[in-house]
Structure formats: structure tokens, C-alpha cells
């Protein structure tokens, strides 16, 4: 069973072709991570899945329930945390929203204003907002990039835990090789509009970054990215 089916996807911006015939199939519940240097079209691929960009060519199929966590929290500053989580949901979703907040470790924060939250907290609210909709496809666009190193590790753990529990299909766009290897069932590196490497990660969770297999994966991806 697939959650995402992409074939022959092309997208150019002006003279620059960022996606040049990409084929991708993601199983239900699979965690897929996409690595690549800046400006290679990782985020474009994700935005096409979210419906924020139109492909130039190719077919894109995704489940109807898709949610996105962006690099920034993108909360409505003028509304409190709980209404931010339940935004766009039918009335009577307060309990669900509060539950989702509790799940990301922010129990009792429902009445807080977004401006009073720390960066990590705000990003967890964004995660709760994405999860409360019970997505079949969760799109993560460098969701930890703006966080400090310690918070980032905690957030990775939280995402791993929540994804293991809810089992959405996930597309994670990231620059962080360790993050990709730590979380994903499969990692691909996007280069010159195509996947230069596509590799399943079959290590048991939780993954130890000092494990020789982990190190081997890291080395492969880093060398594909041109860092040795």
C-alpha cells in the first residue's frame, strides 16, 4: 500500500531545473528522509506534495489528509496556543487539541500566547497542530533546523516516538545527515534534480550514532553530498 506515488516529476524555476524526472513511492507508515545541498529542490518536492507548488510535468498522488511542519512554527500570533492547534478543525475539538498538546509535552499550555513560547515549544505546538489532524502523510520541512542542538535532539526523539505511535507516512526534508539516518526507514539524496542515492536504513530503534552501521550510512551520504 502506497502513501505517495510520484512519477516523472519535473519542476523548473526560470532556467533552473530543480526536479528533473523524479520517481518516488512511499509506503504507508514509512519514514522517508530527503537529503541534499541547499537549493536542490528538496523543499520544492515537499511543497508540491503539500499542494503549495504546481509540478511542470509528472503525476503526484498523495493521501487526502496531509499536514506540514515548516522550518518556522508559523503560529497565528493573535490566537492562543490551543486555538492555534485546533485551527480549521470543527468546533468541539478542544479536547483533541489539548490531548495533542499533552502528547508533545505541553500540557497546560493551551492558554499561552505564541509569543511567550520558546522556539522549541513553539515548534512542538506546530507539531501538535500537524498531528491532531491524524495525517496519513506528515510533511516535515527542516522542522528542527532553527532549534538549538540540544532541543533538536529532544525534538528528534519526540518525532520518532510520535511517528512510531501514529504511523503516518513521513517525508522529512533535512540538511542533517545524522538526523536522517537516526529517524528514517529510507534516505535519499537529491542532486541535479534526481535521487543520487536511495538507501533503506534497516537499523533497530533507538539508533546509536556510534554503531558501525550508522557510521557507514553517514559516511555514504556525506560522500554523496561531497563531504568526506
Amino acid at each position, binding site marked *: *500500500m*502506497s*502513501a*505517495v*506515488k510520484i512519477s516523472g516529476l519535473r519542476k523548473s524555476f526560470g532556467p533552473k531545473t530543480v526536479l528533473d524526472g523524479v520517481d518516488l513511492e512511499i509506503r*504507508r*507508515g514509512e519514514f522517508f528522509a530527503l537529503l541534499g545541498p541547499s537549493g536542490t529542490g528538496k523543499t520544492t518536492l515537499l*511543497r*508540491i*506534495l*503539500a*499542494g*503549495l*507548488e*504546481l509540478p511542470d510535468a509528472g*503525476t*503526484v*498522488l*498523495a*493521501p*487526502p*489528509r*496531509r499536514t506540514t511542519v515548516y522550518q518556522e512554527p508559523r503560529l497565528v500570533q493573535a490566537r492562543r496556543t490551543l486555538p492555534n492547534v485546533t485551527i480549521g478543525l470543527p468546533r468541539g475539538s478542544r479536547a483533541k487539541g489539548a*490531548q*495533542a498538546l*499533552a*502528547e508533545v*509535552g505541553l*500540557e497546560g499550555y493551551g492558554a499561552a500566547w505564541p509569543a511567550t513560547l520558546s522556539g522549541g515549544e513553539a515548534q512542538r505546538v506546530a507539531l501538535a497542530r500537524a498531528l491532531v489532524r*491524524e495525517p*496519513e502523510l506528515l510533511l516535515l520541512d527542516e522542522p528542527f533546523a532553527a532549534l538549538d542542538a540540544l532541543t533538536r535532539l529532544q525534538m528528534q526523539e519526540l518525532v520518532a516516538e510520535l511517528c512510531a*505511535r*501514529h*504511523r503516518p507516512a513521513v517525508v522529512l526534508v533535512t540538511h542533517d545527515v545524522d538526523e536522517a539516518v537516526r529517524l528514517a526507514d529510507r534516505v535519499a539524496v537529491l542532486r541535479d534534480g534526481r535521487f543520487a542515492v536511495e538507501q533503506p536504513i534497516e537499523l533497530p530503534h533507538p539508533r546509536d550514532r556510534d554503531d558501525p552501521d550508522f557510521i557507514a550510512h553517514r559516511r555514504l551520504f556525506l560522500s554523496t553530498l561531497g563531504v568526506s
Partner: protein
Amino acid sequence: MSTLAQSPALPAEAAGTLETPRHLGVRRRPAALSLTVRLSVPLLLLLAWWYGSASGALSPDVLAGPGAVLGALGELIATGQLGEYLAASAVRAGLGVAVGAGLGLLLGVLSGLSALGEELIDPTMQMKRAVPFLALVPLFISWFGVQETFKVVLIAVAAAGPMYAYVYLGVRGVDRKVVEAARGFGLRGARLAFGVIIPSALPNILMALRICLSISLTGLIAAEQIGATEGIGYLVTLAQQYYRSDYMVLCIAIYAVLGLAIDLAIRGVERLAMPWRAHLAAR
């Protein structure tokens, strides 16, 4: 951390149904289509006016027809009065807006930038804003007479209020972090204002200029009712005195065209002054 009850991993009802993501982004509209849509409502109004007059549904006593108004326009052009009137009004409005908007800009920046400035300036400006500038006409006449000074001062006072309010908002809206960084690089006073604050607040400032120019048209009608022998405000007075329906409508048309000209001019300035947001004209 509390946990939710295990939620079903795969909702059965949705299993297997995939769709092409519906496009949520902004589509680019062809320029020609945009222009056509933009022009369509004014053109429809003109057409309705013309049809109403031609079919007799609109009596000339209620609203003069396009023919009569064009005739009046021709008359004004032939006597050279249109040019003179426009020039006289442009000088008054230009001077008034320059003085008033300049003052509003200065006060708005001061008030927006410093707590002391806000405390000193804002309450007075808010009170001033509550006073309709037309209420000042009698007082200004007794101070300045009915000549040019009175007219320019009246328009300046009318323009200062909205300029102040929008600049204050604009300056308040400038990213504090950028201002903090600029202060860290040693920018103070005028250099901070002209180097960082005013460029960043430019969208609001140009919005304010738009409103100031529109208000100056109102000011012209009030100012040129008294002690004027030329000007587009004077033309309104004339039309009223002689009960000339064609001139009344002509005045409205002139103001409408001026409004359009102001809009186009500000759009042009926006394009030149804010190249970093070339496609986002302030509204």
C-alpha cells in the same frame, strides 16, 4: 508526558485512496487578464451612465449626460481655464501636502522611535486627529486671511494627521531586531532614521502619501470656496452657484481622474522606491 490512547495506524475508510494534491498556492495571472478585469467595473459604470442618459432613463436635471459633460470640458479647455485651474490647485495641494506630510513624517518617526517622543507627541496628535480640519476654517481665516497662506495651511493641517498615524504605525512595525542590530553597528539619530527606519517603513509612508493626496482634494474644495478665482475646488463652487449640472458632473469626473492619477503615480513611486518588493504594491 501523558500519552494518547493508541490511535488507529491506518484509518480503514481512507485506505488506498490517493489524490493529486489540490493546488493551494498562488497562481500567476496573465497581465492582460488582470488589466481587463481592473478596467471592467469603471467601464461598466461609464457604459451604464451613457446608456441611462441616451435612453432618457436619467433626466439631465438629475445627472447630466456624457455629451453635456464633454461639452463643458471642451468649453473649459477652449478658454484655457482647465489648465489654469489645475495648475493653481496643484501648487496649493503640492505645497500643503509637502509641508503637512513632512511634518507628519517627522513627528511620526520621533513618536514611533522613542518612548519620550511618543509621550510628548502622541496624545496631542490623537486629539488633533479628532478635530475635523474643516472646523479650523473660520479660525484660519481670521489668522491668515483668505489668500494663499490660508489655503496651504489648511491642506497642510489636513495632511499631517494621516501621515503621522501611518508613519507611527510603520515605524512601530519595523523589525525591532533589525533596529537593535543597526544600533549595535553605531547608527544613531538621523542616520538610523534614514538608513534603516524610514526605508523599512516605506510601504506605510507611501500608503499615507496616497491618503494625504486624496485628502488634499477635499481640502481644495473647502479652501477654494473662499477667496479664490481659480482652482478645481473653485469650479465646484461655481457649478453650485450657477446650478450647472454638467459642471457638477465634470467636477466629479475631474476628481475621479485625479484619484486615478494619484494612484498611478504612487504605484510608480512604489516601484522605484521599493524594488525589493516589486510585485507587492501597497494597498
